[in-house]
């Protein structure tokens, strides 16, 4: 028996670790560092209907224990991703999760439909929470009605399980989670970045060309843990947790809070081997805290509300 294995809708994970969307491209660059077959899954960079060139630079800024980014969903468009990127990742013995985004419900639908034709993608991560898209992304992510609506449409369009990626920039995360669960989501993915800003003193203006950006990294971990813990008490669909993970201990913390899978984003930039290192370390860490398997850790800290 594989002690690290987890079963999620559409995903048979050999371990719960997966690089987070946007922090691993389409895997090519990191495949020079280690064998991607080691990963539980890879979550690809967001796909939109057409190619997007994203925001002007600077697009990143460093903050204490974190960073801000405003990439702006730059990607070659869903067709190019299916043609050129999915086949590359499909060489590896891992699961592929496609992160999908759009400015309109129609665009989400179109992107979801496109992935129906590929056999190599196991699940969709529905990004309703990217704070860097002005046209609509942010409204979808903070309004439960809109979130439910886009979830329904994508569920209907797609033949894949859909994990809805929640934004933490909300007054009531449980309400958002319940809305998308009711709309048919197979799972949740949380959290996306918190909207932040850094001002560059010498120029007296926001450092990022986009002004605001998404805060990620270990700075936000306590917020991610709190939100996952709260949501876990109120929904029955599984959660892929993320936000500041950089060690195997962080992974155990996310599992305890209620995550069934754990994505690693920003930490890949600090250490390109981080996912591989965590996978190597995880068995020892489980043992240290008295656990035999990943499965038994999930939600252990959660007392029902």
């Amino acid at each position, binding site marked *: 028996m594989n002690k690290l294995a987890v079963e999620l809708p559409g995903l048979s994970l050999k371990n719960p670790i997966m690089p987070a969307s946007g*922090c691993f491209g389409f895997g090519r660059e990191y495949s*020079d*560092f280690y064998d991607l077959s080691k990963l539980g899954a890879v979550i690809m960079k967001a796909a939109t209907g057409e190619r997007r060139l994203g925001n002007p630079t600077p*697009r990143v800024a460093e903050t204490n224990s974190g960073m801000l980014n405003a990439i702006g969903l730059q990607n*070659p468009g869903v067709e190019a991703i299916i043609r050129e990127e999915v086949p590359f990742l499909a060489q590896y013995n891992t699961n592929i999760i496609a992160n999908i985004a759009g400015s309109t419900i129609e665009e989400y639908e179109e992107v979801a439909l496109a992935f129906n034709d590929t056999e190599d993608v196991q699940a969709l991560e529905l990004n309703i929470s990217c704070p860097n898209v002005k046209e609509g992304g942010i409204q979808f992510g903070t309004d439960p009605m809109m979130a439910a609506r886009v979830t329904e449409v994508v569920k209907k369009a797609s033949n894949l399980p859909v994990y809805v990626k929640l934004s933490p920039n909300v007054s009531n995360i449980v309400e958002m989670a319940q809305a998308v669960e009711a709309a048919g989501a197979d799972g949740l993915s949380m959290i996306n970045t918190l909207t932040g800003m850094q001002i560059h003193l010498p120029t007296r203006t926001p450092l990022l060309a986009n002004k605001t950006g998404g805060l990620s990294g*270990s700075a936000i971990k306590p917020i991610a843990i709190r939100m996952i813990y709260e949501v876990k008490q109120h929904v029955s669909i599984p959660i892929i947790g993320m936000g500041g993970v950089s060690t195997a201990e962080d992974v155990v913390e996310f599992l305890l809070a209620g995550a069934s899978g754990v994505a690693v984003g920003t930490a890949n*930039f600090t250490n390109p081997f981080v996912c591989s290192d965590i996978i190597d370390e995880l068995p020892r860490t489980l043992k240290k805290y008295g656990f035999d398997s990943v499965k038994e850790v999930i939600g252990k800290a959660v007392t029902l509300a």
Partner: protein
Amino acid sequence: MISKEIMQILSVSEIASETVEMVLRNEYISEQAIPGQFLHILIDGHTLRRPISIADINRESKTVTILFKIIGDGTKTLAGFKEGMEIDVLGPSGNGFLIEEQDSVVLLIGGGIGVPPMYYLARTMVKKGKKVIAVLGFQSKSHVFYEEKFKELGETIVVTNDGSYGERGFVTDILGKIGSFDTYYSCGPVPMLRAVTNELQGRRGFISIEERMGCGVGACLACVIPATDEKGYKKICSDGPVFDAREVTL
């Protein structure tokens, strides 16, 4: 190929105002690196690595020299590191300068902290039998470094913005006075590169560009620059930092 390497610090010295020279030892990097490539340096307590150009390589002693200016927290911490300590780097990163075999005279234009990569390039050019003309721009006298080292390799003109040393003004002010050359190579702040590429429009040239980076390996799309090709952009960390002056839009 980029590797994650541990480098031993052999020496740290302040060679000009707020400018530090650090000599590092690592076999792989010293064997692999070509001029124009950089190291992506992890500094404890910082989420993002710092990109710093390779300023020189010695394959015999397996050493790599970097030169950096103290800008913010990261470079300040790095400057405080001592001989004997180790740093974690990704490298050699980026593409490096293209050297045209047929060229006989090359013009190297470095501005401030864009000067370091020009030194390793100059050494390589001279080794290949080419004549090097170097134009080095600095803020003021106290910021000048490596003038003697460049002079050993060829004609070297130092320019300071305030005229406190060498010529007064910007590197572009004296490009008109330079004799003939085949290809130019430039590294420095974007406004300088813009001025240089304007001034030398139509000439064959390669420029090395700086941008804030996330991953440093081509995965995150933090460091893109608009390009004239079909894709519409280039990644500075992996397609660059060196570009043909004609293929990117500054």
